[in-house]
């Protein structure tokens, strides 16, 4: 009992720091991924070939190669071409750029799933191209993208664990270090898994809430007392 207590007092601060960093890098990386992915998705949907070709190449590369390989390339290969980045920056950008490729596809698919008739009606009422995107497509696109985005945010959350391999001192990195020093493996990793799971459930819960709230117009039943 006292041994476990001493474990907590010894490693507590480290674990707390790892937890903070995991959440931080996940939130920032996701923000980067959503923002960049949104722009890329729009480019894929509404851009000319001069735009879609490079974007397509980007998406194919980041979807087609493992995140781990991308991180190694940036972290260990970067210096050889004069780009030296610290682990945190590599981890954050790696996660963001990787996620952006998937978000681009989510938004592209959402864009394509707006029925053509709606856009035709908008055109027939002389809504400009800009107004059609802003007022007809985007509001629906964001709603349509919620389920797939929730899924991707969960994947990105769990993928932050991979960043430990390029020495980002996030939670998995700290727990790994702890196990190597204490030679206890099962309990720390079980606790680690439970941590990710709990956070994942929270994200899934919020995603479902958002889906219900935002998609209210898609359900044909009469509205309740509002």
């Amino acid at each position, binding site marked *: 009992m006292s041994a476990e207590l001493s474990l907590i007092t010894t490693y507590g601060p480290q674990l707390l720091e790892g937890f903070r960093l995991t959440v931080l890098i996940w939130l920032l990386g996701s923000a980067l991924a959503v923002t960049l992915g949104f722009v890329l998705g729009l480019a894929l949907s509404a851009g000319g070939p001069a735009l879609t070709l490079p974007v397509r190449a980007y998406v194919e590369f980041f979807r087609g190669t493992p995140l781990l390989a991308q991180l190694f390339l940036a972290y260990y290969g970067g210096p050889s071409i004069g780009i030296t980045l610290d682990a945190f920056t590599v981890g954050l950008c790696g996660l963001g750029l990787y996620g952006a490729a998937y978000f681009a596809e989510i938004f592209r698919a959402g864009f394509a799933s707006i*029925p053509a*008739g*709606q856009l*035709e*009606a*908008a*055109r*027939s*009422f*002389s*809504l*400009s*191209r800009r*107004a059609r995107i802003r*007022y*007809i497509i985007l*509001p*629906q696109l964001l*709603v349509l993208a919620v389920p797939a985005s929730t899924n991707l945010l969960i994947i990105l959350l769990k993928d932050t664990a991979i960043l430990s391999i390029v020495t980002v001192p996030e939670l998995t990195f700290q727990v790994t270090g702890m196990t190597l020093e204490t030679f206890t493996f099962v309990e720390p990793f079980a606790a680690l898994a439970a941590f990710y799971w709990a956070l994942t459930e929270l994200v899934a819960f919020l995603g479902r809430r958002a889906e219900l709230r935002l998609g*209210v*117009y*898609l*359900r*044909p*039943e*009469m*509205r309740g007392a509002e």
Partner: protein
Amino acid sequence: MREGMAGAGQSLEAPPLIEVANVSKWFGAHRVLSAVSFAVRRSEVVCIIGPSGSGKSTLLRCINFLEEYQEGDVYVRGKLIGYASDALGRRIRDKERNVERLRRDIAMVFQQFNLWPHMTVLDNVAQPLILVHRKRPREARELARQVLEKVGLAAKIDEYPLRLSGGQQQRVGIARALAVEPAVILFDEPTSSLDPELIGEVLQVMKELAREGMTMVIVTHEMHFAAEVADRVIFLDHGVKVEEGPPKELFFSPKSERTRRFLETWVERNSLFLDRPAGGAQMNSVV
């Protein structure tokens, strides 16, 4: 040249709101419209009928340039829509801005309603006024409310379109068209995707508009409606205008053999009801 002709020939008559002159259109090698011409004047109701695939909807959609046509001209209030001339006098696609400007005079009602599901009924009607016609939101919504009341949907303004019946949705579609105060409304088979018992409420609204003098071009399969409301009926087959005339002539003494054959099915169907006494038993035996 057109202005000159109009000035000399039909002296006192105003130029038509819509003039379709020798319009031809191809989808690839397939010719869907062959030199179709007709005109629509203020307060006229023109119905376009014909078998499926005859090019009715395509013709309608050429009027507001939702479809490009390759030959001929479509004039909206005397202005060519969709095309301009370059320095050498060759025909080029007009700027989108110019097409949009001409389209403001033309509203459209669609077979599948094509409402915007994420907007309330009120906003479906108000948004074009705000985004295109530069009305202030409050003013636009007040106008929208009035128009929705007119089509009998005052109680539904805060509802979302997908929660309405098909007939109600189409009335929202009509309200959306009315609200922009267009010179003409194009109807593309407005009742074709409605349950039979919902068709009446939509046709009722359209009849009311016709009575008020709204200019309308209507692609329809509702022959009764066309016969009752149209000033002129155009029969289209394989992209060719076979016949055009007042409903009385076209429906009851068609000049063309093709028109007669097309209408036979309709006349036959109706004779079931006209010739027999209104006995329920007999009706059942027929059906």
